[in-house]
């Protein structure tokens, strides 16, 4: 994490373009630039600037925005936007996991027949669709065509949970589809591998019902690779969030990062990158914990 912040900082520093010019525009004189840099502490050596910035992060203080919303606290911006991103992310994750548990199990149990072929084909298709295009297809079908969901705008969960679930459904589904596809394939492969193992045959020969055998001996053993893949996909999820938020007009951290990228607001882009990094590392840690809980052999 520490090294991550170091990289984020220095790549941003090495970037062409001067923050002072972004704010002051073409009419900047050397004097106003110098004054701006002094006010922001940008005339200090890089190392001091980095330590200053790092110290700020630890206190959740990312400095102030340059151009996206001038002179506002970036932490305030993030605090306002992060809950929406987290809501959409969790929503998408829930959809993806639900879909994949159903499809993956159906495919594995019906291995080789039409249901398996159908679920597997759906999964390959899901991986192959660019998520933003799928988002537009959802808008075309469910929003413009059937009028079931709004095509733009998001009601934050703090205002109305139902409204958030309704207005967030299409963006969440667009992000979820490719993930559901990956999860389905993982679960199917894991289940099939376990279905062939000896302890499953023993359980069947002991007269245990098919359902008992499946849940106690097949499913439990398959769930760990599944969870590992779910954890890995968090990177994908956050990447999808960036574009999808932009398309559906969800003003979360993802769309903030894009806006900041357009406005060349280096500080905000930096802060967003760090937030995403922190989420990924946090989830990875959580996955490790869950796996250790499910499989004591891994807890060493």
């Amino acid at each position: 994490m520490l090294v991550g912040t170091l990289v984020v900082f220095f790549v941003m520093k090495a970037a062409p373009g001067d923050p002072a010019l972004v704010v002051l525009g073409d009419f900047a004189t050397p004097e106003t630039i110098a004054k701006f840099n002094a006010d922001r502490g940008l005339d200090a050596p890089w190392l001091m600037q980095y330590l200053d910035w790092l110290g700020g992060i630890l206190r959740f203080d990312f400095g102030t925005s340059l151009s996206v919303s001038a002179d506002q606290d970036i932490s305030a911006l993030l605090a306002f936007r992060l809950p929406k991103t987290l809501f959409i992310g969790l929503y998408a994750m829930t959809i993806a996991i639900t879909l994949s548990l159903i499809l993956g199990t159906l495919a594995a149990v019906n291995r080789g027949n039409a249901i398996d072929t159908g679920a597997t084909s759906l999964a390959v298709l899901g991986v192959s669709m660019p998520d933003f295009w799928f988002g537009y297809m959802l808008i075309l079908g469910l929003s413009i065509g059937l009028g079931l969901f709004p095509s733009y705008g998001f009601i934050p969960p703090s205002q109305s949970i139902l409204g958030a679930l309704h207005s967030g459904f299409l963006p969440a589904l667009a992000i979820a589809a490719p993930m559901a596809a990956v999860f389905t394939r993982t679960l199917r492969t894991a289940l099939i591998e376990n279905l062939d193992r000896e302890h499953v045959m023993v359980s069947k020969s002991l007269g245990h019902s098919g359902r008992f055998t499946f849940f106690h001996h097949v499913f439990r053993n398959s769930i760990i690779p599944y969870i590992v893949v779910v954890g890995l996909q968090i990177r994908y999820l956050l990447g999808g969030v960036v574009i999808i938020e932009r398309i559906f007009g969800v003003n979360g951290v993802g769309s903030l990062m894009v806006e900041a990228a357009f406005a060349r607001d280096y500080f905000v882009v930096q802060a967003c990158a760090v937030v995403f990094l922190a989420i990924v590392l946090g989830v990875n840690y959580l996955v490790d914990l869950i796996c250790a809980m499910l499989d004591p052999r891994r807890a060493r």
Partner: protein
Amino acid sequence: MKLNALIQNRAALAGSTITALFIIIIIVGPMISPWGSGAFDFTAVLKPPSWSHPFGTDSLGRDVLTRVMEGARISLMISASGVLAAMCLGITAGLFAGYLGGWLDAIVMRMVDLLFAFPAFVLALFLMVALGFGVTNVALAIMLVYLPIFARITRNTTEVVRGDAYVQAAQVMGQSTPRILFREILPNISAPILVQASIAVAFGIVIESGLSFIGLGVQPPTPSLGVIMADGQEYFRRAPWVLTMTGLTVTIALLALNLLGDGLRDLADPRLKRRDA
């Protein structure tokens, strides 16, 4: 990998056929198309798909199919060059790290972990801001996204085979380390790398079109797939076919590359294939 086995594997066969067809179409297509990719026709603006314009026309009366073929070539070239660069650097780093181990391995793998911790698209976006927009930088961003993946795969497989008899034999014969790495080890671990490469090219196209779609990648008038889709998105309600048809083309291309990757993986790992059959 035997050609026979390739033909018998349905996924690989379908994937490689469609991919090959696709490449032929995007090279030959613009040449035989009656329309130029940049030719305006203000008498035929936003026309829905028809026989003369199978994908319809855009807001400047340009033939969308011709533009998609042009764009697919540009997107594929960006993605493939990014992935190729990632392979060169990643494989080299992975080979040395996996073979020599020790501090070199530790440093390389820490850097890989670091790059790996960023969401691919966030990393790409971040680099676009840092480097500026444009074709070369999109390819560079794709390279940095895939570099850690190739380095990790190569390193892990190298570590597995480095004690094998043929490697020991080469060592005893006094071959130089680079020679052992590239002539002895690399050919033996190429299968998983090739699988990854076909999938990486597919997702490289997604990264390119995603970046260009939100306006942070390839810039118009260069017609990459993302640029065409961004254009179509602006008048999506009036003329949904521009975005729909372009995206459909991307989906089919990715489907082919994914099938090819899946097929190659099954061929490289016979254990999985036999069980499924």
